[in-house]
């Protein structure tokens, strides 16, 4: 069975981020990351909302994708800056996500800092990806 447009978009975003220097990029990693496994960047979907369009046989979707950067440093938010700016630059350099999307827009960024052996920072950047599918099939535009 062919991949949905959503899956193609997520896979392409992961590919676009794979070249981030200094961090390992994971797709939807659910296992906890140990100190030696960071810096790390995780790509995961959050939700995907359809709306009707002016075309009776099409749906426009808004896919929220979360890019989460994990770092361990004395000032984690400072340390994460080099990775979050790479995430932004690499995603905004391909705003149609290889032609699968209508556009891609940055949304909110959240910072969570935790006490640990070495302080932990988790910075999540949400992006909204608008794309179109057939009303009857998620695999065709």
């Amino acid at each position, binding site marked *: 069975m062919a991949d949905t447009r959503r899956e193609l978009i997520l896979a392409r975003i992961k590919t676009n981020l794979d070249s981030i220097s200094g961090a390992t990029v994971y797709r939807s990693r659910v296992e*906890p*990351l140990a*100190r030696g496994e960071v810096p790390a960047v995780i790509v995961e979907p959050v939700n995907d909302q359809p709306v009707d369009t002016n075309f009776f046989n099409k749906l426009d979707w808004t896919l929220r994708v979360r890019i989460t950067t994990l770092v361990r440093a004395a000032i984690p938010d400072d340390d994460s800056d080099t990775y979050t700016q790479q995430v932004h630059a690499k995603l905004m350099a391909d705003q149609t996500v290889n032609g699968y999307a209508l556009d891609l827009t940055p949304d909110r960024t959240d910072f*969570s800092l935790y006490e640990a*052996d070495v302080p932990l920072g*988790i910075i999540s950047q949400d992006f909204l990806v608008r794309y179109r599918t057939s009303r009857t099939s998620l695999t065709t535009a």
Partner: protein
Amino acid sequence: MAISDTLAFLNTDEFGVTCQIGAGASFVGILDSPMEVLAGGMALSREYLLYAKTSDVSATVRGTAITVDSVSYTVRENRPVDDGLFSELLLSKV
């Protein structure tokens, strides 16, 4: 805990290890290193907890360098335990 029991508790023939703060005198402590899950399961942190007599570690504060069993750490927190005879040092591995 009775004071007479403390040296038996801190014994390198048992679970005790040799510790040193800077270039100071060596003393015996017990190091625990439990793994903790943080941020709702997103990350793991190995905690380093050193138990020692308060009289041996009372001078330590955040940032103090300490060697435990020939491994270097810095102190994050110094917390007296129970009646204060012992203290628990929360460490970061250097």
